[in-house]
């Protein structure tokens, strides 16, 4: 009798173990927020490519469907909000299928489907302050701060970049090459906030201290910030 019981427990344990998912390899994407070639710090003065002085106080962007070029499936719930104010938000863990992916890809912003599908949860919860209520749609990326060149109240500059309709689209497909000699389980990706100001479209704070709605200015700025990423070696 006790032997049979032992056997039963053994079988049960084995069955449970078999149901555990097989541990996969994974890689951590670590975003480093930078201003030019310096780590981004609040309260520090930087100079934009247009020669304006900026203190950057808020820097946020959405990373959607992050994946490697050789992965077959996208992340199940692949929406992340990288936020200057929350250091834990800068790390994204992704599974790797094969040995060495050569590209890291993601959508900078939120795809149009999520912009028209009602209220979302998690990183896409409107609670995160990255959603326009009066003109439905996500703010794909945000950059705010203070600049002596700004004619706005409190010398503020405020760039809330959004718009998902065809002519106003600000979501950007990003593909980053991973160097062949990359080693380790962490991929460091630098995001340079100063690339919002140029080159490409020269964003002068004196002329445009504020962008709050979809349209031409937002599309221009999105055309700049799509180049802000760079894979770096530690």
């Amino acid at each position: 009798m006790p032997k049979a019981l032992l056997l039963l427990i053994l079988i049960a344990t084995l069955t449970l173990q078999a149901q555990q998912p097989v541990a996969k390899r994974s890689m951590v994407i670590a975003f480093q927020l930078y201003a030019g070639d310096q780590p981004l710090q609040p309260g520090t003065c930087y100079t934009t490519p247009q020669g304006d002085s900026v203190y950057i106080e808020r820097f946020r962007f959405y990373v959607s469907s992050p994946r490697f070029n050789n992965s077959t499936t996208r992340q199940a719930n692949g929406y992340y909000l990288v936020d200057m104010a929350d250091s834990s938000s800068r790390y994204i863990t992704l599974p790797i299928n094969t040995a060495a992916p050569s590209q890291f890809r993601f959508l900078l912003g939120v795809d149009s489907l999520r912009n028209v599908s009602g209220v979302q949860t998690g990183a896409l919860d409107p609670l995160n302050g990255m959603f326009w209520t009066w003109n439905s749609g996500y703010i794909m990326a945000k950059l705010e701060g203070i600049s002596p060149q700004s004619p706005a109240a409190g010398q503020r500059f405020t760039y809330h970049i959004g718009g998902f309709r065809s002519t106003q689209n600000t979501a950007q497909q990003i593909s980053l090459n991973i160097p062949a000699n990359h080693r380790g389980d962490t991929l460091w990706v630098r995001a340079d906030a100063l690339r919002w100001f140029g080159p490409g479209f020269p964003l002068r704070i004196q002329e445009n201290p504020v962008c709050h709605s979809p349209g031409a200015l937002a599309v221009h700025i999105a055309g700049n910030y799509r180049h802000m990423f760079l894979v770096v070696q530690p």
Partner: protein
Amino acid sequence: MKHRITISVLILIILSCTGWIWADHAYLKPKPVTFTVPQGWPQPVYDFSQNPLTQEGITLGRELFYDPRLSKDGSLSCGSCHQQFSAFATYDHNLSHGFNNSLTTRNAPALQNLAWQKEFMWDGGINHLDLQPLAPITAEHEMAESLQHVLQKLKTDSRYRRLFKAAFGDENINTQRFTKAISQFVLTLVSSNSKYDRVMRGQDTFILPEKLGYQIFQQKCVSCHPAPFFTDFSYRNIGMPLDPVLQDLGRMKITGNPADSLKFKVPSLRNVMRTFPYGHDGRFFSTINLFDHYRKSIQQGPTTDSLLRKGLPLSNFEIGQLTAFLYTLTDTVFTKDPRFAPSGSGPSASPPKDVH
């Protein structure tokens, strides 16, 4: 022998427990509600599969709709500007009254038949019903509250924790559940029992002026206000001059396209006699002012609707008959339905003498 009895009893208990765990606890789950499409109406555009109606969900939505704690100072609920006796528009107010003696820039629209509506607000800026409550709750001149604070207030109220659990299975309160519950309630606000509807169903007949009015309506109004919703949900410029204070360009604010300047959503005419004043900024006090606008004061501009290029001639006789017809669109079954009134109160079908 003794052991055998103990073991049998234990097995019996275990079996009954697993049976209970595996059973379908219909009495613990929210009770599904079927959304009824009125006879002859198209299928709704709202995706009910993403937010299935339940009795508990609708009840929670109604509590939220009538809860003034959704506003910053606890003075305004959704129901403050969307009053049942006015088909859920604001009775007798051109612009709605918001937080701290502020005024909004537009006239509160009636809330009815929302399941068939794809875009919301006068400019269509909101593309999903679930997103709609976020705008008035957070707008400075409306309820002026933050979403974080609203959810915080709900989470600290044990009654709401119970209501959310009943509607969604657990006590978790988040933006999505909050807005889905409000959607569930407002989706039930279907107006399809006016005299016009009874006549169309063969249950009633028009008196002569109503019948003549209906014929004039079919000639002069129906291209923008077709049945069964009495709107085609399009955006049009009916030649209302720009208000110098409000500077409201309407649809252009959303699309950025100059061709959309001064265009606003065609409003439904259901319950129109209860939803005065009229126009996106409530500038027309009565239907008489509206008729006068159409026949005398249409301002021709680059975006004025092509159907109004030559104005819209209406004789005094026609206006009289049209008015009689418009009265048949009043649905008192809807404005008196106790399911739509605040819980614990009777139907609020007749407006108070003074609403301010």
